[in-house]
């Protein structure tokens, strides 16, 4: 009884320190749970619904290129393309891709696709790999990404694009391309 009375008398201190420590650890873990840009790959997805963490975990299990410690999956909207958005890969609808090529030229990298891989081509260059095909209604990682709203009479194609400024795309470091292939393999 006395212990309970003592606890009750100090309740404000218990609550205060619980709050302070929770906030402190949450703040510390925002740094612990992140890494430098050169050690992580960022996949930005513009879809109707997205399970970010499970997809990131699946991608880390499927493919963690050399030198990469973490894969982040983020949700993004078209508006973000004109900002300082730092992504390596973007999964977006065909209509968004068209607008992005017009409004933010130079944002996306032209791609060289291997034989048998469909892509989005404009002005003789390929800008995206076909991820979700509206004809077959099938795309990669459908357990994590909702490509079409329900019901959608005219679903749109989704393309996977690579950021031209990505530090992981090029002759030296091709981790973004490896991640793109791993993403497309997820059933």
């Amino acid at each position, binding site marked *: 009884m006395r212990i309970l009375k003592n606890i009750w008398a100090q309740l404000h201190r218990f609550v205060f*320190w619980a709050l302070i*420590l*929770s906030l402190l*650890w*949450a703040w510390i*873990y925002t740094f*612990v749970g992140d890494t430098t840009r050169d050690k992580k790959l960022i996949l930005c997805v513009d879809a109707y619904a997205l399970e970010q963490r499970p997809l990131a*975990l699946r991608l880390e299990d499927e493919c963690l290129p050399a030198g990469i410690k973490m894969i982040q999956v983020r949700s993004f909207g078209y508006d973000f393309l004109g900002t300082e958005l730092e992504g390596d890969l973007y999964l977006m609808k065909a209509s968004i891709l068209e607008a992005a090529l017009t409004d933010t030229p130079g944002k996306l990298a032209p791609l060289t696709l291997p034989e048998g891989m469909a892509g989005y081509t404009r002005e003789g260059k390929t800008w995206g790999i076909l991820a979700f095909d509206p004809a077959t209604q099938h795309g990669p990682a459908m357990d994590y990404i909702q490509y079409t709203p329900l019901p959608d009479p005219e679903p749109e194609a989704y393309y996977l694009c690579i950021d031209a400024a990505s530090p992981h795309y090029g002759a030296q470091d091709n981790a973004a391309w490896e991640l793109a292939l791993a993403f497309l393999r997820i059933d």
Partner: protein
Amino acid sequence: MPIVELYPPERLARLARRRRLVKGLLYLLAAAALAVCVVLTCRVNTHNIYDMLLACICISVGAAWIIIYFGIYVVRDGGRELAHARHLADGPRESLSGQVAILPLKVRIRNSVTLRKLRVETAEGPVECSVHVDRAEELRRAGPRLTLYTVHGYVVAWQRMEEEASHADP
């Protein structure tokens, strides 16, 4: 009937020892909790980050609550009681004899001990004095008619009056 001291040297020594021991254990607990949290944080990966965060919060909050509880009720209050007792140790003693009533009123001296007010019905009239709140129960058990020895109005020792009388009668 012998005089019962409320702050005999053995009691004060025991209190000081207990206070030191608990203080050391609390430092140890804080260091251990911090070490465990650092180890957990170093083992973070994408799969376990939320579990590790939760574990760190639970460990640090649990340790903080234990430290707060024992830090206040053993270390701080023990230190205050020791300081209070040492302050009274060499003061001039006065005695009050009569019917003792323990009043429900508790008085907390700022940054010091909490006291219980007493009223002693002496031959000269009622006199008020104070006793450490944890020692009030001891006085209650001793009975209503007591001789209280006080320093600066604080009770430091007591003696049963009936026993005195029975010794005096023969």
